[in-house]
């Protein structure tokens, strides 16, 4: 019983990180059909900046504020400079562009920070483990779950209840008609990349705080996890991203507790094969693919 609760907490923590990652990616996909492979680099740059700031003794709340602001700026800048000229281009053009952006950001990071692992030193009070009876829950896990719930809640409110959100959803569903109603596509692009950047910044801090170290090339893992989560949940909608992220986290934790030790090194491969199996049964993903933010 205790073990089951322990696993559930693990699954929620991993899954909610994936859900966050997936939300940031699916928002941009929903509005401009762009699968942004440069997304992982937003996380890496945020975490690299965090390493720098923490090493200079900046207090954690300021680090978080600075890093998330930076991620928003970086995301809007890439959206404006690299993707806005291709607003009406074919999705493949956008995809290839995103590979280019990924490389530029990666080599810029290597130039600035070098090509070796850096340690993200989080303060020791965040590394504590809470003991509830025989249940052991790391504080980082609780912070991850709590932050994800808050971010997902804020995003839901923004998309469902504010005029900004309604404009974003209208644009995602029918860009041509949205334009006909006077919604400027470039304004929506800025707003969406800003939100995506904020989510990437938060997710990046949570992700690398848990991993503990990173290099300029650490972007692939989070990008792939986010991508798998949105495909698993249903491409192009926010509910799908959350469900897909939680399901992927659940699958991972389930596999790592069921698999024999010898197979643990292959957890990712086995998880992805299960995802393929699920997609064969439900080709649209768990929620079903449709552009509904």
């Amino acid at each position: 019983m205790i073990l089951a609760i322990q696993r559930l907490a693990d699954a929620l923590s991993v899954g909610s990180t994936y859900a966050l990652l997936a939300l940031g990616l699916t928002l941009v996909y929903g509005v401009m059909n762009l699968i942004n492979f440069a997304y992982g680099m937003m996380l890496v740059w945020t975490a690299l900046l965090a390493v720098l700031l923490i090493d200079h003794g900046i207090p954690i709340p300021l680090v978080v504020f600075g890093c998330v602001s930076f991620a928003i700026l970086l995301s809007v800048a890439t959206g404006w400079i690299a993707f806005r000229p291709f607003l009406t281009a074919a999705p493949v053009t956008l995809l290839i562009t995103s590979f280019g952006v990924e490389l530029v950001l990666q080599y810029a990071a290597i130039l600035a920070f070098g090509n070796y692992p850096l340690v993200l030193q989080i303060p020791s009070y965040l590394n504590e483990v809470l003991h509830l009876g025989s249940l052991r829950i790391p504080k980082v896990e609780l912070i991850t779950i709590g932050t994800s719930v808050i971010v997902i809640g804020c995003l839901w409110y923004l998309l469902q209840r504010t005029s900004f959100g309604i404009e974003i959803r209208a644009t995602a569903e029918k860009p041509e008609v949205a334009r006909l109603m006077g919604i400027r596509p470039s304004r929506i692009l800025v707003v969406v990349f800003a939100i995506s950047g904020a989510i990437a910044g938060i997710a990046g801090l949570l992700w690398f705080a848990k991993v503990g170290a990173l290099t300029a090339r650490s972007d692939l893992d989070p990008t792939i996890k986010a991508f798998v989560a949105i495909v698993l949940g249903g491409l192009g909608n926010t509910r799908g991203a959350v469900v897909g992220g939680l399901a992927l986290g659940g699958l991972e934790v389930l596999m790592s507790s069921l698999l024999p030790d010898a197979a643990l090194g292959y957890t990712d491969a086995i998880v992805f094969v299960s995802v393929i199996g699920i997609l064969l049964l439900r080709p649209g993903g768990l929620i079903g693919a449709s552009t509904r933010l």
Partner: protein
Amino acid sequence: MGPLLEVSNVVAGYGRSRVLKEFSLKVEAGEAVAVLGANGAGKSTLMKCIAGLLHPWQGQIFFDGQDVTFVDVEDRLTLGVVLAPEGRGIFGSLSIEQNLLVGATSLRRRYESRVVRARIEEGLEKAFGLFEVLRSRRDDVASRLSGGQQQMLAIARALMAEPKLLLLDEPCLGLAPKVANDVYAALQTLREQGQSLIVVEESARRALAFADRACVIKLGRKLLEDRATAITGDEQLLEAYFGLSGQPTT
């Protein structure tokens, strides 16, 4: 005072294909004009040019005495040219009220922010007054509406932008005759309130009974233009128009 809209010798198309060929049209304030033509005649292209979605290759478009030929769609909305597009273009994932609010987007550029809220409330009231069915379902998701209700929503949404000239691209496409009559009844009410409008139709009967004036467009050129009542009894039109569409549906 000059006409509200003047389309003068407009040539337009997509890529290399010329769709509109030196097309001209005038609409006076308060007038209802029907543009009739078969599928592919250039009706929607004309609407896109007037709305600013498509810039003409040649010719000019004047609105309210101002040259708007190269004014883009957002600024043309602000001037009061509003298109309810073919196929309705309803945002199915938004509620009915949210659809209407999206329609009011351009008001924020037109009025000071403290006035906008009141204008929106007024617009909602007018839209719900015209289509009572939308009022009772204002919080429903728009995809649940029937085809006719969606068309009513599309018209109501266009009205939210406070059009001086309302463009309706095939408002009865795919609707049952009875529902189409309801749509035209609402358009009649708007007309009586002084709304200037252009309605594009493939099926002539209802539009001719409704409009002040009509023109027939064939292969991108204006075939004829006259008072709607005159055209209704015109053999030339019936020949040209139904000969092309192949279906005498009157």
